[in-house]
């Protein structure tokens, strides 16, 4: 199960993180609501979403944030540590509806992407700054962000 650990020396400015695809469907939003405790009807009632001026049901910002956390932490491995993380919910995303009890209808797939923008040593920590974001099916970055991670060094 464990992936091979990535080291600071393996990474350069411009190194891209493996893209993490995600599909937000009604099922995921319901599970997220329960697991996160966010029961705002904006995320499961179309009419309520319309009354809020966003045109219908929208994907939770914090769910997209959790995808981005997964992108970074699974890449940095067990020996890495994420010091900083930030993301902004700039664009509205709408979940796919369900085709069966557990399969979504055809539609949009979101891509979580990241790349290294800075590489430096801070005290005894080998750090990397990352630019990260969630792209919708049209390639628009609806959830841009940044992160700073500390990786082990072969030093």
């Amino acid at each position, binding site marked *: 199960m464990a992936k091979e650990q990535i080291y600071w020396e393996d990474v350069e400015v411009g190194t891209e993180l493996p893209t993490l695809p*995600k599909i937000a469907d009604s099922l995921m939003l319901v599970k997220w609501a329960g*697991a*996160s405790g966010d029961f705002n009807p904006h995320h499961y009632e179309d009419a309520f979403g319309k009354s809020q*001026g966003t045109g219908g049901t929208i994907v939770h910002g*914090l*769910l997209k944030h959790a995808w981005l956390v*997964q992108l970074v932490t699974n890449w940095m491995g067990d020996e890495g540590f994420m010091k900083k993380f*930030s993301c*902004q919910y700039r664009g509205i995303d709408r979940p796919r509806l369900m085709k069966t009890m557990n399969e979504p209808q055809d539609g949009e797939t979101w891509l979580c992407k990241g790349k290294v923008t800075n590489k430096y040593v801070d005290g005894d920590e080998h750090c990397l700054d990352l630019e990260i974001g969630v792209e919708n099916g049209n390639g628009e970055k609806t959830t841009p962000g940044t992160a700073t991670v500390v990786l082990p060094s072969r030093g």
Partner: protein
Amino acid sequence: MVLDELKQYIGKVDPPHVREVEKGAIRRYADAVGNDNPLYYDEEYASKSRYGGIIAPPGFFGWSAKAIAASEGIIGLMTAMINAGYAGILDGGISYEFYLPVHAGDTLVASPRVKDVAAKEGKSGTMMISQFETTYLNQNGDVVAKATQHLIGRQL
């Protein structure tokens, strides 16, 4: 002035929330996200890792940041925003500083406060941008993380 009224909430500190970080809650959170990292559910794998046991994904403190934030100062500010006509509330984003991992079984104390409120001109008119900062301490009194959330109020 609406903004002056809202600014009265700045600095308001809510009573701390105390919560245990439950193993099952971590597993359900990771499952909801579709995050299959064994550090979050596999006891045997996690016990052999540097953490010595199951940890929570960064950004999960046993309960979501948003649920923790649902407290008096913040609810008070949100209610005042809605009453002033800024009733379309949207989550604007979040930023963290992480200091220590959160382990299953930790008891965390979350202290939220209203950090700022500001008006911003957007495409659809004036928006109110509020910021909340939550500090999380573990049972040893060490700060594990700080989170700052932005909630946006829009006129509908």
